[in-house]
């Protein structure tokens, strides 16, 4: 079992003829994802080298393929419009990989997506994978192991590192999601945790946070009130200086807010153990689940 994505999810690729889009379409197909077509405005009617039909618009693609999800690899300047197009075409799941989208563009798009009832993951994220079934995004499939632990993270490569450690410890994953490193993302930890709580295929959740904002603090409150499954956490950026953006636009400590200390304290108070290292995190999960 898994959340949001399984082997029957029918996926469109927006930006399928671009370099990244083409490369990752092949990777996703190899992993077993059901990709039904792609969208690149002006290239409708063509076929990709992987034999997939290309459409001019998401709406046409949905009508022709019955797609229910979309993944976006289009450049930052056009990515917000691409998300909006996918939401208006009534896709249930939209995953936006693109990094560098102006934040105010996302303000408008976020509310459009919400009004359409769609689920947006990202932007600036590695995507979502339900190991052994399907992946939508850019993560290396081989490091994952099918299993019963959910992973949600604000990071990309750090998520791989943590999944790799879990797999090495024999802990398989139900669904792993990188929510994205931007200040405004479609789905927060708080949006996703209840889905794991309701998923009979998930026994516990690993939460990977980082400095900036107050999402981890707010999530701690939600965990204390609503989540009965065990949650294990890891927070990066303890050594980050104030006022500097650490790569991710969202990862910045400002005015004493958004520090790692504050997040660790809030999570501990909600009964969530916060590991000091990645190995410790994996070992803690293993010890608690008897994996």
């Amino acid at each position, binding site marked *: 079992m898994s959340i949001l994505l399984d082997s029957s999810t029918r996926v469109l690729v927006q930006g399928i003829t671009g370099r*990244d889009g083409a490369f990752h379409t092949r990777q996703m197909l190899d992993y077993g994802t059901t990709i039904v077509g792609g969208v690149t405005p002006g290239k409708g009617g063509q076929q990709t080298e992987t034999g997939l039909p290309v459409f001019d618009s998401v709406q046409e693609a949905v009508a022709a393929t019955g797609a229910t999800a979309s993944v976006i690899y289009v450049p*930052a*300047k056009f990515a917000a419009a691409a998300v909006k197009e996918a939401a208006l075409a009534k896709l249930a799941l939209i995953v936006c990989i693109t990094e*560098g*989208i*102006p*934040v*105010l*563009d*996302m*303000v*408008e798009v*976020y*509310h459009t997506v919400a009004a359409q009832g769609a689920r947006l993951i990202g932007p600036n994220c*590695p995507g979502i994978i339900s190991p052994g079934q399907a992946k939508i995004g*850019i*993560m*290396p499939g081989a*490091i994952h192991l099918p299993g019963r632990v959910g992973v949600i*993270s*604000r*990071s*990309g*490569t*750090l*998520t*791989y*590192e943590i999944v*790799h450690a879990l797999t090495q410890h024999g802990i398989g994953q139900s669904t792993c999601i990188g929510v994205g*490193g*931007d*200040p*405004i993302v479609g789905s927060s930890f708080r949006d996703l945790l209840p889905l794991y709580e309701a998923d009979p295929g998930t026994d516990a959740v690993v939460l*990977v946070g*980082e*400095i900036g*904002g*107050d*999402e981890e603090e*707010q999530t701690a409150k939600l965990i204390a009130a609503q989540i009965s499954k065990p949650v294990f956490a890891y927070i*990066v*950026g*303890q*050594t*980050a*200086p104030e006022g*500097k*953006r*650490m*790569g*991710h*636009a*969202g*990862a910045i400590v400002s*005015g*004493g807010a958004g520090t790692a200390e504050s997040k660790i304290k809030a999570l501990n108070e909600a009964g969530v153990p916060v590991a*000091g*290292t*990645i*190995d410790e995190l994996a070992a803690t999960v293993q010890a608690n689940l008897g994996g």
Partner: protein
Amino acid sequence: MKIHEYQAKELFAEYGIQVPPHRLTTTAEDVFAAASDFGGTVAIKAQVHVGGRGKAGGIKVVDGPEAARAAADRILAMTIKDIPVRKVLVVESHAEIMREAYLGLILDRSAKGVTFICSAAGGVDIEEVAANTPDQIIRFQTLSRDFPEAEARAVAGKLFNDEATIEPVLAAMRGLFELFWDKDCSLAEINPLVLNDRGEVVALDGKINFDDNALFRQPEVVALRDMDEEDRNELEAKEKGLSFVQLDGDIGCMVNGAGLAMATMDMIQLYGGTPANFLDVGGSSNPDKVVHAFELLLSNPKVKAILINIFGGITRCDDIARGILESYQRIEINRPIVIRLSGTNAEEGRQLLAGTPLETADSFAAAVKQAIACAKGEQK
């Protein structure tokens, strides 16, 4: 991206927010001339990109050109939080301030919008007001770029508790809101917004930060960038597609991904070392990036060892290994290097490095410990 107070004032004026007469200068003699032209009381204000200028002595209110020149001499000789003062702003300060308020707009991550923060208690650190007397802060959210006329009007009269100020305060709120959206800001604040004895509502000081992701469509904002205030290495890194932040330690870090780069810094500190920098080489496999990253790390004389930590996803470990080998041919690398490769094509990467004196560590933790030992001179 940040700008100076004088630049913020110019943007305020452009958006119909009243600001006091002012002139930017770089010498005490020009301050003397400006103070003579304005006459009477003037404020002399250091223009640097750091908070706490006033507390550091970078702002002086004086009477007459002689006193202005003396104050400017002192301020221009100052260094505030490691930044030498190069420019001072002379601000005409004739009117008496009756009341001080705070007016700000911030990007609100939780609300997924832009939130107004208003307070009748201005002129001080708004974070302190929020912490100590939260009832003095009025917040309201906006979720689109339509100015919230009704809500703003309801708040406008409360800032100075004076009906006569509703229209000018409302104009300032509208101006700030339009400026925020037009220029892709992440923060725009007027502090203090004052009511003076002439009944005018004036922005005495302000701060504006911009969304780096939107700079591609804001050439006028980019033109405001003060190169003297930016870390040269950080700017150069940005031009080459690297994300870099200078720190104080002695272990140079080269990592792919922001989260993993932070985790690497944290782990170095956990095991008793100190990171010299944050450096994310990004998701590309271009060997030139590795060469640039080496140049950047080696330009820091404090760096005693370099730790390369790569978890391949989009980035292929064999490409990174080729970049490392190419770097050795193109530049002189005279400090110990510890390399950890994992993920996509890690084995191919390790094989490329196998015939060289470069050693690869088995795990993240092992690599960090080895780098710390190298930096301490315990291992070569």
